């Protein structure tokens, strides 16, 4: 059996490795860099820079350190490149040792079951489209010059002193956190009435408060109505609930979301939904029985971990195994400062699905470790079913909570009850204690919260 994978991002490379594990002959075609958007332009470089910025911010604000500190963007950029390079090479190595044939170039559909790339024709029994997504542009603020996309802003040669970010989703909030930590003047503009609109309302409120506390000028229910390049910078006109505002910034970043990208494979005539995402069944099969799709091209959420999971399911089905992509909880993590985790249902979603939804919330000040590391800003929230006491959702805001997202997903996937969770001994002093505290709060007997 022969599989051709188009795209070497999180969906594509994971699919290729899984296919080799199942004894399938695989050719992977990548137009740019292995690792795709995630490794080269988004998740990984942004985490490297956020780490650099957080180290600076922590050191610069620690009273027990003395001396003048300055953030060297060029050095941070070198660190970023080193990290990206290392992970990209890691993927190359993994594919090579798995025995995946990698072709560089832009693939397009060939006659019958084949693709064409670099003048070569590769025939297949099955095709996996992992062609990813592309940024959505704003008509009011076209990219180019001082108007950057999320890729370009991470590749700036020097740090801007002021930046306006259009879009208060995960990428926008992370970018705002990055530049606010290194001392830039930051505007964050979101058209909806709150930041991180898809997540829990309390989460949005906490993040907005935290960013504002770091000097970020947050404008919700606002949009760009005009802009002018003044030569030395950009002058943006914003329509806000408080009237029209002007902002002068060095650069603007458009972070208005992403959309699925099929590229030349649109010619296959696969069924797509309204936003152009390839429709698949739970086995990740498209409307053509020999074509599967995984990752961003299947639509939101645009997460690498979703792409990994879908890719494995697609290949397992191609190999004849019965496997389905039907997770109960796909964790959402925002690497802002403070970080955000959202797993499973919000209270409103759970109620809408017929659960007797209840929630409890505790402040991070209840957790000793959070206080000791100066990271007690934030909260933890647990959504559960009052009848079965099964945990339905976990929502966290706080420094370092991203590392708890996997545990939260485990709780939801394993249908853990609040009673179970309360009985699991969690190590002290760690942030993970917030889980016990939440469970006990749900049982009406929290130890480290005086009053709910």
């Amino acid at each position, binding site marked *: 059996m022969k599989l051709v994978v188009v795209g070497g991002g999180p969906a594509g490379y994971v699919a290729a490795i899984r296919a080799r594990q199942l004894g399938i002959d695989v050719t992977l075609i990548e137009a740019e860099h292995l690792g795709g958007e995630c490794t080269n332009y988004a998740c990984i470089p942004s985490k490297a820079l956020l780490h650099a910025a957080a180290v600076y911010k922590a050191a610069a604000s620690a009273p027990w350190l003395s001396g003048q500190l300055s953030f060297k963007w060029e050095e941070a950029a070198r660190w970023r490149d080193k990290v990206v390079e290392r992970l990209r090479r890691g993927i190359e190595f993994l594919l090579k040792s798995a025995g995946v044939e990698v072709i560089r170039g832009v693939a397009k559909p060939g006659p019958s079951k084949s693709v064409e790339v670099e003048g070569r024709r590769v025939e297949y029994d099955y095709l996996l489209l992992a062609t990813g997504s592309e940024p959505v542009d704003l008509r009011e603020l076209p990219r180019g010059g001082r108007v950057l996309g999320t890729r370009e802003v991470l590749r700036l040669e020097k740090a801007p002193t002021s930046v306006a970010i259009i879009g208060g989703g995960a990428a926008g909030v992370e970018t705002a956190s990055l530049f606010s930590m290194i001392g830039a003047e930051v505007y964050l503009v979101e058209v909806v009435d709150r930041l991180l609109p898809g997540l829990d309302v309390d989460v949005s409120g906490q993040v907005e408060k935290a960013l504002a506390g770091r000097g970020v000028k947050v404008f919700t229910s606002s949009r760009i109505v005009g802009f002018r390049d003044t030569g030395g910078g950009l002058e943006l006109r914003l329509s806000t609930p408080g009237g029209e505002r002007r902002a002068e910034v060095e650069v603007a970043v458009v972070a208005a979301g992403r959309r699925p990208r099929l590229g030349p494979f649109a010619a296959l005539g696969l*069924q797509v939904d309204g936003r152009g995402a390839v429709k698949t069944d739970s086995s990740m099969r498209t409307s053509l029985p020999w074509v599967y799709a995984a990752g961003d091209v299947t639509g939101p959420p645009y997460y690498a971990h979703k792409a990994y999971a879908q890719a494995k399911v697609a290949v397992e089905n191609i190999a004849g195994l019965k496997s389905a992509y039907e997770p109960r909880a796909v964790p959402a993590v925002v690497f802002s400062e403070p970080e955000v985790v959202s797993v499973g249902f919000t209270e409103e979603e759970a109620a809408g699905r*017929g659960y007797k939804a209840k929630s409890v919330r505790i402040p991070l000040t209840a957790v000793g470790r959070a206080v000791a590391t100066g990271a007690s800003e934030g909260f933890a929230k647990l959504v559960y079913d009052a009848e*079965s006491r099964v945990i339905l959702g976990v929502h966290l805001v706080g420094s370092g909570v991203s590392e708890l997202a996997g545990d939260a997903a485990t709780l939801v996937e394993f249908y853990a009850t609040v*009673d179970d969770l309360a009985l699991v001994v969690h190590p002290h002093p760690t942030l993970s204690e917030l889980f016990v505290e939440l469970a006990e709060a749900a049982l009406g007997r929290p130890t480290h919260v005086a009053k709910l």
Partner: protein
Amino acid sequence: MEFKFPDLGEGLVEGEVVKWHVKEGDYVKEGDPLVDVMTEKAAVTLPAPTSGRVVKILVGEGQVVKLGQTLCVIEPAGEAAAEKPQTAQPAPREVAAMPAARRLARELGVDLTEVRGTGPGGVITVEDVKKFAEGLKGKEAPKAAEPPRATETKAAEAPHTAEAEVMPVRGVRRAVAEKMTKAKRLIPHAYHLEEVDLTELLRLRERLKAEAERRGVRLTALPFFVRAVAQALREYPMLNSEYDEEKNVIVVKKEINIGVAVDADQGLVVVVVKNADKKGILELAREIGTLAEKARAGKLDVQDVRGSTFTISNIGAVGGLGGLSILNYPEAAIMAVGRAKKKPWVVGDRIEIRDIALVAVSFDHRVVDGAYVARFVNRVKELLERPEALLL
């Protein structure tokens, strides 16, 4: 509205979706062919229950559906215009099962809504799924004939097999595979053989052929077999029965419905002649002819293949001495008739050239013993060798 796999009666609890006549987004008229489903017994075309738009197809081709499972969602014509997200309606509660249990259930074809969870809060564990699957096996072994692709190692090996072609087991092949496995696994088969002199019967048929043709019927030997068996079964009703493993009882059927195995293009299909003991040769011939034609055209209705109580396999149509059939589960007996061949035969004290066929009855030894079957076969032999009686 949700279109659910309807109850087609007679213990048909699952089917395999063979072909969708529509795709998502298509408009259908009430009664239009919607989907072809292969049940244990035949391919059935299910019509659209209402006019409207097919919003969602939930079961792909090649997948097995259970009784009551939703096949697709149709938005009735009147509502189609007002397309809106269904947020107001609370979704049905999902079945609580651990991740590995969910995966195992999919591999084993277990419907999680039927499994009782023993985990905390009633969560279904891997153990629960395993136990449920074993229970199924013991009861009716529906998954026994599942193609052996469900385990990872097997599937991993398949692509390496350069010397062999790996074929998916689908449609009639799968139905046959599942049924045969079940019958052989659950029923202790025993066999009784007898040679029958068909000379007189074939002569009689020759004489009646032209007259039958005038009445629009092609007369073969098969309706005589059906008639003889139906008549003999009235005298030997224990072979018109089934053994109920669950209750450990023998159920003797009042109606005598004879299944006739037909070699259709897509494989073996058993069509059913109802109340065969109450029908004349000509009527039987006409009915078998129509059913066989429908089977070969793949146009059988559910009732054409349902409810047989005894099966006849006319294996002699192709050739060979004869054969030992596997029982048509859950029936207690099946009769295979071999090809009539000219043989030197002792008639009285002389040797004559006669048309001799081997008749083999396979039977469920839990229901009857060999002597009973021998007497039944003697009676069938008698009727076939003096065929005038069959015309009465």
